[in-house]
């Protein structure tokens, strides 16, 4: 924002907690999973084991993935496969590092996002996870054959962490889908509330379709921003295409006009038939705030007049000489 007086707008810019997974949120998830310091200690205790079995587990894991067509396709490129194995090994080791704070979560979200981006669907992702867990469980069982109860308890601690991870991974999938939807909705909104600059300082706002409170607010919001961005002084708001103009809709229109006025812009409403206008007045609405002109052309002409333009028709050009 160039104008320093508008600094308050930049100060109020939203933080990048886009996914809503801040530290507090993670703590709540851990509490719900009953993942606490005891579990952290158990997992730390498994570090040596994890390091020892990291490579064989990874190899077996990818052996399984490459045995199925659905998942093989993602790892066709040997370079990709090598890189992914490295990342997977790192992931595996991290499970027992003992640090499950901010950077751990950030890493998990990144891993989930990476899988979503290559379009590996949740069903395979979760299936892979399950296979992986079984490999780990087997190793844990083997290492504690004389104390199966402890092995089981250790496994349960690991499960809590794994479910935290799966929750985060699933969230990245959902977030990615929702982001797409949000972008599409934004595009639809732009299409449905177009504000066109038809001359310097003159905007045309054609409103088409059904106007409910939500849409009315979007239109007003969009118009006000355009008034500022285009330094508009006059707006022609055409309501010919509005499905039904009842008193609620009329009130929305009046509010839009008032808001534009606060920014120094006049609004000419076109397309409001006299029948509808009469009906609205009959309902007790005070329409005198609205500057209405019957049709769009008339409205634009009026707008141009207000802006000091005068439109003249040039003499018809002579017909081109015959060959």
């Amino acid at each position, binding site marked *: 924002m160039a104008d320093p007086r508008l600094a308050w707008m930049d100060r109020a810019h939203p933080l990048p907690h886009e996914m809503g997974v801040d530290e507090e949120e993670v703590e709540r998830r851990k509490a719900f999973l009953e993942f606490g310091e005891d579990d952290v200690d158990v997992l730390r205790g498994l570090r040596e084991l994890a390091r020892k079995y990291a490579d064989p587990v990874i190899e077996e894991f990818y052996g399984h993935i490459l045995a199925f067509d659905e998942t093989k396709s993602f790892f066709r490129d040997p370079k990709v496969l090598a890189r992914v194995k490295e990342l997977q090994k790192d992931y595996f080791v991290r499970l027992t590092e003992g640090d499950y704070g901010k950077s751990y979560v950030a890493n998990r979200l990144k891993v989930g996002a990476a899988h979503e981006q290559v379009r590996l669907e949740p069903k395979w992702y979760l299936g892979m996870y399950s296979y992986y867990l079984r490999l780990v469980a087997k190793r844990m069982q083997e290492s504690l054959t004389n104390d199966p109860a402890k092995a089981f308890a250790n496994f349960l601690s690991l499960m809590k962490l794994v479910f935290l991870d799966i929750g985060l991974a699933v969230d990245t999938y959902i977030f990615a889908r929702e982001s797409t939807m949000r972008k599409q909705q934004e595009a639809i909104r732009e299409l449905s509330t177009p504000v066109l600059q038809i001359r310097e300082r003159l905007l045309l706002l054609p409103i088409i379709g059904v106007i409910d409170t939500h849409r009315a607010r979007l239109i007003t919001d969009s118009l006000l921003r355009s008034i500022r961005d285009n330094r508009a002084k006059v707006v022609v708001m055409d309501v010919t295409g509005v499905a039904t103009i009842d008193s609620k809709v009329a009130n929305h229109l009046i509010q839009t006009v008032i*808001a534009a006025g606060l*920014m120094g812009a006049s609004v000419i409403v076109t397309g409001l038939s006299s029948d509808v206008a009469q009906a609205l007045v009959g309902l007790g609405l005070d329409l005198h*705030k609205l500057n209405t002109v019957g049709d769009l052309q008339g409205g634009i002409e009026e707008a141009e007049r207000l802006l000091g333009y005068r439109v003249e028709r040039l003499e018809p050009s002579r017909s081109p000489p015959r060959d």
Partner: protein
Amino acid sequence: MTVPILKQGDVLVASMQEALSDHALIEFRDRLSDQVGRARARVVIIDVTALDVLDSFATRTLRAIAYTARLRGARTVVVGIQPEVAFAMVQLGLTLESVETALDLEEGLALVGAIAGSGGHAAH
């Protein structure tokens, strides 16, 4: 933090830099009224570009300023209401009826003929 009031010929320009407490707004109102009289100002322009909120009290104060100015023969033009603020004001049901408004300082000055230009939005 008081609001600086500048004199440009017979035009007074007051730039509100930041949110004022109620009590500072009242002080501003009184000081501005005083200056309008002393400077025999023809126009008062109040620039609210930097204000991120215009609530009912601030709006009433602006109307009161305009009223007093009119009693002393001066027009008041409020300029710089931002889109988000205009939107909130209208949702809240606030109006600046009988107070003129313009997009920004430049437009405000053009409106009152202090500079050449296409002017702003006259009061109904």
